[in-house]
């Protein structure tokens, strides 16, 4: 813990002299946040030993952005995240982007973002760890998996984009060519291969395309994402698996409609295909189709209070919704292959920089329960409740 605090102080001091030379009123700035959560579950563990109440969830970030000239700007963020046994709080470079606006028109910009980019799927993935950008305390776990989040966070490479606008709409397209950062770790191996095997997963360059379109006088927004992520498995010295490939193709669809300023309806769906090839008899060649979706309503009561409700659902294999076949094949309980979650909650804006959130979940199934907090799946319960409380402070 002490090491972590020291790192933060060092990073703050490292940034300060740079800041002193740049005029704050020119819109360049230092920004950041601290979030602390509390989770209580009646059974199963979510982010620490939540059955007895857990404070083992926090997020700290410090970032800076500089507009160097009309063409080039740079922005980056250091992030530390502690989440039970699933995330250890180490300080990471979350993003560092050089944005080159190569062509500027009167109603469009074409450019390229080089560096460590956030993976831009869904409405929220790019800023999933910043409480003040999330509409709810936790993002819907059916689609924004936190139990297998590592390979969904960021990638190094380039994003070429084109954005255009008129009086009432805004559209952005982007093509991605990047190497994913979060592939070689136990969490991602558990997600793709059921356990942490002796060998290594190595990512190839991934390709992707994304678009966002805001229209209908900015009241309606749709977004889509497609990504192709090839990954190679290299066996360890003693390894029952053979050298093979796991290829993930992901389609993501999002829609939002606002009846301003009071009501916002949001729905998103996550439609991946995971193809296994050449890993040997223990992981036979096959295609698996997971599925996740949610529907959410947010009611803005006043300039300091909003309420929300959500239903979300996820299946690890949409052709085995009850989990029977996968349970028979793996020995894992049936309920670990699906989850549905009713959530109600509220955000209270004590001030522009302090947000308090609370939410209650009623959950059937454990598909998104972090395995690292629940090492023995046979000890988990199908039906569980969770209460979450969170305070988040941000500055800029």
């Amino acid at each position, binding site marked *: 813990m002490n090491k972590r605090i020291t790192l933060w102080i060092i990073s703050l001091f490292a940034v300060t002299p740079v800041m002193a030379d740049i005029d704050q009123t020119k*819109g360049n700035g230092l920004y950041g946040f601290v979030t602390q959560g509390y989770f209580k579950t009646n059974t199963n563990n979510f982010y620490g030993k939540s059955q007895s109440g857990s404070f083992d969830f926090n997020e700290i970030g410090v970032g800076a952005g500089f507009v160097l000239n009309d063409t080039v700007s740079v*922005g980056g963020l250091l992030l530390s995240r502690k989440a039970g046994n699933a995330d250890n709080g180490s300080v990471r470079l979350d993003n560092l982007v050089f944005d080159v606006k190569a062509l*500027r028109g*009167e109603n469009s910009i074409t450019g390229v973002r080089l560096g460590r980019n*956030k993976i831009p799927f869904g409405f929220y993935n790019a800023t999933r760890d*910043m409480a*003040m*950008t999330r509409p709810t305390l936790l993002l819907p776990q059916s689609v924004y998996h936190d139990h297998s989040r590592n390979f969904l966070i960021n990638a190094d490479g380039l994003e070429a984009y084109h954005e255009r606008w008129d*009086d009432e709409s805004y559209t952005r397209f982007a093509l991605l060519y990047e190497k994913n950062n979060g592939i070689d770790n136990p969490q991602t191996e558990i997600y793709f291969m059921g356990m942490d095997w002796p060998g290594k997963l190595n990512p190839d360059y991934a390709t992707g395309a994304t678009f966002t379109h805001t229209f209908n006088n900015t009241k309606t927004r749709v977004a889509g994402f497609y990504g192709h992520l090839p990954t190679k498995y290299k066996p360890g010295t003693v390894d029952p698996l053979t050298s093979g490939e796991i290829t993930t193709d992901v389609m993501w669809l999002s829609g939002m409609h606002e009846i301003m300023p009071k009501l916002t309806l949001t729905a998103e769906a996550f439609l991946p295909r995971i193809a296994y090839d050449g890993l040997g008899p223990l992981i036979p060649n096959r295609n698996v189709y997971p599925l996740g979706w949610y529907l959410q309503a947010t009611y803005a009561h006043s300039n300091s209070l909003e309420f929300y409700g959500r239903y979300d659902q996820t299946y690890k294999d949409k052709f085995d919704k009850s989990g029977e076949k996968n349970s028979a094949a793996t020995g894992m309980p049936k309920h670990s292959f699906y989850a549905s979650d009713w959530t109600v909650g509220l955000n209270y804006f004590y001030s522009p920089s302090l947000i308090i959130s609370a939410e209650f979940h009623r959950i059937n199934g454990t598909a998104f329960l972090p395995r690292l907090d629940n090492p023995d799946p046979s000890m988990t319960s199908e039906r569980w409740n969770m209460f979450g409380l969170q305070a988040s402070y941000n500055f800029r």
Partner: protein
Amino acid sequence: MVIIANPSTSTNAVSQSEARLIFSNDIKAWKSGEQIAVITMRRTDEAYSRFTQEVLNLYPYQIERAINRKRYAGTAQSEIVAVSAEEMLKLVASIPGAIGYIHKKAASNMPSIKILEVRNE
């Protein structure tokens, strides 16, 4: 509250949705091609909260989320923060392409800025 702009801007009126797109940093240039410089008050300023609700028809936290989603993904923001109404007037008057907002009374009879009419939807 009224929207004000540098007199050099070619525009005399904006729609409410155009204003939302400008202040959330989606629209980045005027129709003439001139770059837009967004001037805003501090988040704690009462004028900020009044502006978002009266002119944009959004609660402050709704537009904050949109802006933070860009900032925290590494998109550097080029908005300029004014610490007082006087500074808002001064910045909008002196920066070509600037847009800001102010109490209606403070903006009347000021030749150094112009008031943009907001067309409601």
